[in-house]
């Protein structure tokens, strides 16, 4: 109640927040930080907290935005929008953030009213989405699930775009193969409707070589060496498993709201222990081979079980309960009463395994959709980055199953889209303008701002001072090293476009991306031959997840519109 008695401080009210120099400067700084991280050649950021904690090196938007303390409300809106997008789709965080910044910056230069820009931005967005979803789209590839080619490209593109994982080319190949394998493990064999995907548990193993990483079916439980030695001999036949969710430590839970009076000489511990031993007896008579307990098992019960050659593992933890239940088919037991026979599950076998300096108990399932990805990397921060990347890749693969398309990566989708929008605004402005009271001139202005936002987003993939070109046939992205001689034979200097679909030997003409050029008709409909050639060749494509990118595009434009629409910011200073 004290707070009520304190006088409220009046709020601070800014009008037209975007027009102030301070806000613009802040936006520019944020944009600079994010742009420099973008892409496979992005610069790494080292985040260290002056108050302590570990130092982390990253180039991912998730980590970066989580750790940056943003104070201005407008920036806060932007960063939370990006973070929320990433938490839904895992991928395309930087894409969203940079595009949003670019849009705000470019649109402000046009000096049109907020109402018009917002309306037109929305039209352009709808236009982009319907193009990217349409049959004629020239930057979309269907995913062929009969071969792993495209999926592998997708995973590899994600891995290479995170330079802070510190992977060599060989390691990227290894890890991407592992991720794909782990993902395939989680797909159930008998595909009923709906498909329920299994789970891939990432097990940390730091300080090892990346190439030591591996995928194992089933669940790995870490154990101490002593415990390992105590394990009984392996059985060849199938195992019967009991899974306890309740504590087997003999504690007396929940006496109720009133009081419990215990007479002198009555030992509750003994009483509970009797119960525990009773359970043990039942487990023995039911011929259970393995007892797993989420919480603690009383040492006496443990001793009793090991005397009867039953393997008992406790303190499994709540996170492993669901996978264990899935792997074994056992139901977590929640009472100390007689165990119903239907609660038991089974497993194929178990083995002990040693990876690096860690010992693991490996439960091998008969047939299950749970696997463990043992992930190694040299140090903590690189491992953290790699783990995040693996999670992203797994999530993106899931999204791709739902919507089996990928977009061309490496900046090609952006430049192609920009070229297409430019072309359409000149040729058929009516298809974008939906009689909304906006003039064609306004559309031209905003479309230019929108396209240059997309192009400068693609341009931020280049960090080493190189030049960015676009070809006048497909509208793809080409980058060339810094300082090209004035008169050059472009086909010799360039090799492949950003996504890797086209090579420079295909009689193309180029122009600088940043220079003004006449709108041209980019070829829609990706030619089938182009794809087949590249798929056979050793060269891999760079592709992005369609679902994540589309949503990123939507969120970026929606957020930019939101910010452009602000008339006031009222800051509560309490």
């Amino acid at each position, binding site marked *: 109640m004290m707070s009520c008695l304190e006088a409220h401080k*009046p709020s601070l009210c800014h009008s037209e927040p975007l027009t102030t120099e301070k806000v613009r400067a802040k936006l520019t700084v944020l944009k600079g930080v994010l742009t420099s991280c973008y892409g496979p050649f992005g610069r790494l950021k080292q985040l260290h907290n002056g108050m302590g904690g570990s130092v982390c090196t990253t180039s991912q938007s998730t980590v970066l935005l989580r750790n940056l303390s943003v104070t201005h409300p407008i920036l806060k*809106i932007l960063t*939370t929008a990006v973070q929320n997008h990433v938490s839904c789709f895992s991928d395309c965080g930087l894409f969203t953030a940079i595009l949003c910044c670019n849009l705000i910056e470019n649109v402000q230069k046009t000096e049109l009213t907020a109402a018009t820009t917002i309306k037109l931005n929305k039209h352009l967005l709808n236009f982009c989405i319907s193009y990217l979803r349409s049959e004629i789209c020239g930057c979309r590839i269907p995913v062929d699930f009969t071969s792993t080619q495209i999926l592998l490209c997708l995973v590899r593109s994600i891995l290479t775009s995170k330079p802070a994982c510190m992977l060599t080319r060989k390691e990227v190949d290894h890890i991407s193969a592992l991720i794909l394998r782990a993902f395939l493990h989680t797909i159930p064999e008998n595909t009923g409707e709906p498909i329920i995907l299994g789970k891939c548990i990432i097990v940390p193993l730091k300080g090892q070589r990346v190439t030591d990483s591996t995928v194992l079916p089933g669940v790995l439980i870490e154990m101490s060496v002593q415990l390992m030695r105590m394990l009984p001999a392996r059985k060849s036949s199938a195992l019967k498993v009991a899974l306890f969710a309740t504590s087997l430590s003999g504690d007396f839970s929940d*006496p109720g709201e009133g009081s419990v009076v*215990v007479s002198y000489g*009555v030992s509750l511990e003994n009483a509970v222990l009797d119960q525990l031993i009773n359970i043990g007896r039942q487990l023995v008579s039911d011929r259970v081979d393995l007892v797993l307990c989420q919480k603690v098992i009383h040492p006496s019960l443990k001793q009793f079980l090991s005397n009867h050659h039953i393997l008992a593992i406790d303190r499994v933890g709540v996170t492993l309960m669901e996978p264990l239940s899935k792997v074994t088919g056992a139901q977590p037991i929640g009472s100390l*009463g007689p165990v119903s026979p239907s609660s038991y599950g089974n497993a194929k076998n178990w083995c002990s395994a040693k990876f690096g300096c860690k010992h693991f108990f490996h439960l091998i399932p008969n047939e299950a959709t749970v696997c463990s990805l043992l992930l190694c990397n040299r140090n903590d921060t690189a491992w953290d980055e790699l783990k995040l990347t693996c999670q992203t890749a797994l999530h993106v693969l899931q999204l791709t199953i739902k919507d089996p398309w990928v977009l061309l990566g490496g900046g090609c989708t952006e430049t192609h889209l920009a070229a297409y929008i430019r072309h359409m605004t000149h040729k058929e402005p009516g298809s974008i303008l939906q009689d909304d009271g906006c003039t064609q001139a306004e559309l031209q202005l905003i479309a230019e701002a929108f396209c240059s936002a997309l192009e400068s987003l693609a341009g931020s993939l280049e960090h080493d001072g190189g030049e960015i070109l676009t070809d006048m046939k497909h509208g793809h992205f080409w980058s060339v090293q810094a300082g090209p001689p004035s008169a050059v034979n472009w086909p010799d200097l360039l090799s492949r476009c950003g996504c890797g679909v086209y090579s420079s030997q295909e009689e193309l003409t180029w122009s600088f991306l940043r220079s003004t050029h006449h709108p041209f008709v980019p070829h829609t409909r990706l030619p089938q031959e182009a794809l087949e050639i590249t798929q056979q060749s050793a060269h891999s494509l760079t592709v992005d997840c369609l679902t994540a990118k589309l949503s990123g595009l939507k969120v970026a434009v929606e957020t930019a519109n939101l910010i452009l629409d602000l008339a006031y910011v009222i800051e509560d200073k309490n």
Partner: protein
Amino acid sequence: MKSPRDPGKLLGFRPGADPGELPFLSSWVPGLSNPTREVQGQAFPPSEFVKSSGFSNREAAPVRLPVHSLLPVSSPPFPLPVAPAALGQCRCSDGCQVEAVSPPSSMAVAVSVKTALQVAEVLEAIVSRCVGPEGRQVLCTKPTGEVLLSRDGGRLLQALHLDHPIARIIVACVSSHLKKTGDGAKTFIIFLCHLLRGLHTITEKEKDSLISENIQTFERRWKNCCQWKFISQALLTFQTQILDGIMDQYLSRHFLSVFSSSTKERTLCRSSLVLLLEAYFCGRVGRNNHKFISQLMCDYFFKCMTSENGMEVLELVDDCFVELNVSVIGLPVSDSKIIDGLVLHRDFSVYCPADGDIRVAVVREIIQPVFSTSRSEFVLNSEAQFQTSQIWIMERTKSIMKYLLSQNVKLLLSTVKQPDLVIYYARLSGISVVDCLSSEEVSLIQRIISLSPFVLPQASLQCEISDTALVKFCKPLILRSKRYAHLGLISTCTFVPHCISLCGPVQGLVEQHENALHGAFKMLRQLFKDFDLNYVKKANDQNDALRPCIYKNNRKSNQVPKIGNHSIHRSYQDTGIKNSDKLEKTQYLKAHSNLVVSDVELETYIPCLTLKMMPPDRVQTDEIWRCLPPENKRITDDYELLIESNSTRNSLTENPGIEISYENFQVTNIAGKGSMLPVKYKSLDTCISQSFCSSSIPAGCVLPVGGTFEILLHYYLLSYAERCQQLEEIVVSKLIASALLGIPKILYKPKKGSHSFPQIYLRALHTLQTSQPMISCQAGLESVTGKYHVLTSVLQCLTKILTIDLIMNIKRQPLKNCDQDSEDELQH
């Protein structure tokens, strides 16, 4: 007011009262001369205010609000003759120290129209940029670091944390208004500001003319106070006695309805609901989303509704809105959708897939028995006893579950957390469990399926479940990696359970949409109710406007249904028009013969109602006209009698005409977009008959958006003022009439050419004068009652401000109950 684009000037209409026009003003109130203004002018240096008016000047520099320095808290230059009285009052209430006792450093602030105007102008500057379809968003931060997007006037005022006393009065009035209606905060502020501005100009002009008067300062102040008191009284009388009458008599003929009332049952017309909602969301959510959100809401409403009358559904949705919507953050707004069934904001503790006959039971206590309940002791005498009691607990839990299963209960909903043992046995029995439900959720479920929770018996193992209900399905629902329990309840009331999942990139935006949706349901709930006008008919007041007399006449004829045409005519002659003679009688007959000619002519008669606009003879016919229809409508049985009466020919000829006008459902074409508005154009007859039954605004009354209400009321107030002879009433109605235009002025500000405000205004006046039906240039509708409430609330607020003469700063912690009240008001 003085901008070159001021439409008032262009039109030759002067906003506010002109002293030239009102020479009586000085005689009206003795102390109207306003010398204290000078003193206050010194006390409140205008330079301070200029800073804050940076809002309207598009200054980017931050402005601190409230402008506390704007209004000096110290030393009003008068010796405070009022202080003792006020002091006495304060002492009575709580015996606190009042700062005003120590004269020179007094903390009391004199309240004047000028200060109130300054405060209101600052608020208006903020609010006016968020109003209407062109309005923009405001970003509010909370001390916790959250950000909220809003265009909601109430929320903005709350976020500003105003501490100027007058601002607080205004905010309190706005929030009490919002509590009642949930809409119109921005309109409130704009209207209030224009009223204050109007008052200010009146007094300023008076001051100029009477500047030479030489009275002592405090006397002036006294007189000044008296003047304000008079004005406020006049406002109050106006609001209670005149406004309702004008609403009922003049405005009501322009009302449209969202119900297509071809039959006796009111059926909600979908397309007009769409228009209504679109207009509502236009002013409430971001520019890009209003269409989508209004479509979503419309779909939702029609999906939830079974019967034609949605009132019950509206009440339920309004009451349980929080439970009926799920916010999903991180997805684009366009991913929002309507989900069939009820989504509980909880995951299953146990989920066992089940099909077929699924029954649900609700429990409010822990199923597992415990050793001892509160205030009891459980004595353990032996280990065996402990073990048996534990086994008993297990057995009992198990048997309850078995019993539930035998009753086909496959789903257990619980308000409390059920212990692991219960969860375990539920899983074994194949019963899904959702626990930790909020009591609101459970009461919503109870409301939908009328199911009461079952009670566990204390002693016996056999428990009786009084109530279970059938559900269509129960399954987990995953929205953006968060899991919810999704139930297909079979409703026993008119509400068909559906939920809305609202998506948005940031929490603040989703919250805005939630609030807007909730507000829309509130608005509809208000709209679907009849609203009674408390207007007192001044029956015998000959000086008053003519209209009430005629109504009285009509009423008479109504009460005596058997009277023939002649008798109506006679009674009409008696009271209504003074100079009625034989000539007029022939006129009257002519009018009747006219009726037979064509219904086209008839239609032209209908809207033609303004007294002054018509030559006297046409007034007569018009009035007779209106005498007849109600009778005809209500007494269809007595129709035979009428025929039998002398004037057989007349009534016969008259009848078909009436019939046509009665069934005169026009389809008004609104806006150039060609959207057809299938609302019934209320013909005169029905309006009048309703005003006879009870003077009320019937449920579902709407007007086109874009200031139609304001312009209409403006017009009728002005014409009322011309007829009126009482000075206060003239002043007040002119004042209100000009202030009403403030809202359409702001709405049409960004428009140019033929859509600019002066053009619109001129056109509207022209159509009214020539008695054509009003055509709005904007598609969209708004509730009449909502507008009416804003108007009355503002007038009440203004009277409140005007009646206060002094604000005293009390340096003392507020009393507990007072504190809660104010807190409550702020949180609305």
